[in-house]
């Protein structure tokens, strides 16, 4: 295998692997920017993966599958929002419960579907003209599905909305200081519900991508801890949608390398790599307190009660 084709393959696969991380991270950034931690990303992704596969298989079209993944993700997230925003339950406990529930439910429902390839997977779109450029063409523009490009576009749009619009000011304010937003007549609960639900939609699509596009089949536990990487990436990207792009594709590359290098390094060690890195990232963000912590939303993880002193 010559050097260029190795690089082309690696980058192109890293991009493909980074897509679910990107979608999930963008969603979690919005949820956390509004002040709600959702540790249920893994659960929402696996439910999305299952629903995406089942619906695409049944209806014979990947689009329906992805729509179903988004819907299921939203439902799961709304449940988290109901518990944490309305009932003011502990966000960490509720999120963990959601992950365990999602993994369990998807495993149970997916029994009969195991091992069958999807009959209508989402294909790659070769971008006209660009895909014919040597090296860069096959690297970036030939083997990607529409979700890669949509994800990148979404990151830009979500950045603009967050930092340059009325909505963005409201979302960030609710996450920093809900009492302030409340005193100006903004419904803290509504903003949080919407952001958490958006987080669910994006995590659901991220999961759906895995079973409908990336590896068009259903395998139990196929998200393989990606939801946790998403949580780390949210911090790594300092709650900034544009920075999430680099983070997602960097971890995508790590994932991919852990397959590619299997011939040379012990596979167990390689499989650990993304997670070891996630731990490193979290530890680093704890050390550089002034730099990283200062940017965490001020009211992250704290339920809002009007008039509480």
């Amino acid at each position, binding site marked *: 295998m010559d050097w260029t084709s190795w690089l082309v393959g690696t980058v192109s696969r890293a991009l493909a692997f980074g897509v679910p991380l990107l979608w999930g991270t963008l969603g979690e950034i919005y949820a956390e920017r509004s002040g709600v931690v959702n540790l249920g990303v893994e659960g929402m992704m696996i439910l999305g993966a299952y629903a995406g596969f089942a619906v695409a298989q049944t209806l014979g079209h990947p689009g329906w599958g992805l729509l179903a993944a988004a819907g299921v993700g939203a439902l799961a997230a709304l449940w988290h929002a109901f518990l944490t925003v309305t009932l003011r339950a502990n966000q960490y406990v509720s999120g963990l419960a959601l992950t365990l529930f999602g993994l369990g439910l998807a495993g149970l429902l997916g029994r009969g579907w195991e091992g069958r390839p999807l009959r209508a997977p989402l294909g790659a779109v070769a971008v006209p003209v660009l895909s014919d450029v040597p090296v860069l063409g096959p690297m970036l523009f030939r083997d990607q599905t529409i979700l890669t490009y949509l994800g990148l576009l979404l990151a830009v749009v979500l950045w603009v909305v967050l930092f*340059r*619009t*009325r*909505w963005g*000011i*409201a979302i*960030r*304010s609710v996450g*920093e*200081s809900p*009492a*302030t*937003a*409340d*005193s*100006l*007549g*903004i*419904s803290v609960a509504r903003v949080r519900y919407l952001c958490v639900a958006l987080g669910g939609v994006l995590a659901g699509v991220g999961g759906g991508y895995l079973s409908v596009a990336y590896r068009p089949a259903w395998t139990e536990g196929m998200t393989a801890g990606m939801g946790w990487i998403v949580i780390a990436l949210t911090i790594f990207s300092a709650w900034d949608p544009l920075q999430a792009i680099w983070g997602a594709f960097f971890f995508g590359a790590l994932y991919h390398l852990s397959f590619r290098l299997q011939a040379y390094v012990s596979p167990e060690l390689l499989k650990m790599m993304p997670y070891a890195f996630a731990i490193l990232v979290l530890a680093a963000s704890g050390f550089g*307190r*002034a730099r990283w912590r*200062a*940017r965490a939303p*001020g009211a992250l993880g704290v339920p809002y009660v*009007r*008039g509480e002193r």
Partner: protein
Amino acid sequence: MAEGAREAVLLRNITKSFPGVVANDRVTFDLQPGEVHALLGENGAGKTTLMNVLYGLYRPDEGEIWVRGRRVHLRSPRDAIDLGIGMVHQHFKLVAPHGVAENVALGLSGTPFWAPARTVGRQLKELSERYGLPVDPDRRVWELSAGEQQRVEILKALIRGAQVLILDEPTSVLTPQEAGELFKVLGRMKAEGHGVIFISHKLDEVLSVADRITVMRRGRVVGTVRAEETDKAALARMMVGREVVFRLTKKACQPGEAALVVEDLHARTDRGTPALRGISLAVCRGEILGLAGVAGNGQRELVEVLTGLRRPERGRVAILGQDLTRASARRIADAGVAHVPEERIRLGIVPGLSVEENLILKKHHRPPFCRAGGLRLAAVRQFAGRAIEEYRIMTPGPRTPAKLLSGGNIQKLILARELSGNPALVIAAHPTYGLDVGATEQIREILLRQREAGAGILLVSEDLEEIMELADRIAVLFRGEIMGTVLAGEATLEEIGLMMAGERRTVAVGEER
């Protein structure tokens, strides 16, 4: 009769209870357009609660709200804002990491969807010139002084078309000069026909700024008077319910050896910005050094460094001649330092433990309270009984959880614990903040008694009157530096105010002592 037709706002028979207290008991209050109506009362009288009702944050249990002759039902602040009511809360409601313009644009109807901060920035400039409220729309809120933040809050209300402006204890974060500026702004607003509700517990300023004064006590209105028809003594009587003595008796200061010497101390805030930039000061035994300054100029960090809760970057701290820079909180306490913390409930007590357990907290591991690893309950009980009596702590019993006591009694409990065993140095941060007049008097007396017993006291307070009354010398802190030290007997309010605003005093009086 067209009821409430003239009033900008009429609150009628408002009742609002919280578990255990009736914060407002059939309160009636009205505001005319173009007047400043002061709401005066001690801490806990129910002023903030009443205004939160008018601003739609709390729903009253009973009573009616009328705005410009119409009965209204406020479900949220949005309704109040739409009716032209604006409120500047006692604890500002600002998003600290955001820019000024973003803070003003938040939830503001009529701003464009895209880049709202830019449009609002332009409007802000115009408005701030018209009312004499200078602010820079591009600065981040956390970089602003308390006075500047207050201006942002006022502009926030004005830009929303507030006809009625509620200011909840606006002067508590200002220097006397800044307060003067604020009063001028209120004058301008009055002239433009705005009504202002001005909340305070300070008699002088209420008399100087208000047209009418309504006094509240324990959730009820005591009465409403015109400012020109009353005086300080009469207001104090209405507010407290009895005669108030304005002067404590204080013996002449007889300073002894140095209890605390601080040299060139540097430290940072939690954010990593510089908090202390070269503080040097000394407190002798038998004297009170008052540390004045607007909140957030390094007071908190200084107290934390001195009590071992924060590491200094540079400098030296010596207590009774012993170098205790970077020593642990326990070592500093063992050296004879008493700490009366600013955050009484968080740092001063263990809320769930009983009164008697809280009373022995710092000594629970030593005889006579501890023997062979076990608590000696008889000794604890005896000690607690004496402390409760001596400090007049009002508690249902020694085994009541400390969190159930009122603020004043929690503070007395802390003092009883910290002052037992006659400390050489007392570091008291805002010891009477938020307490009623009775408790305040008592705590000031306790501090004076301790001074006579030979303790050096560092008194950190935002209440200038308190500092003028208790301290022998006054040092003023501004942006982490000491602007000057003056003898209390020779200091004027104006001089201290100027130092609080950052003007350095050239001759350091009494520094050499």
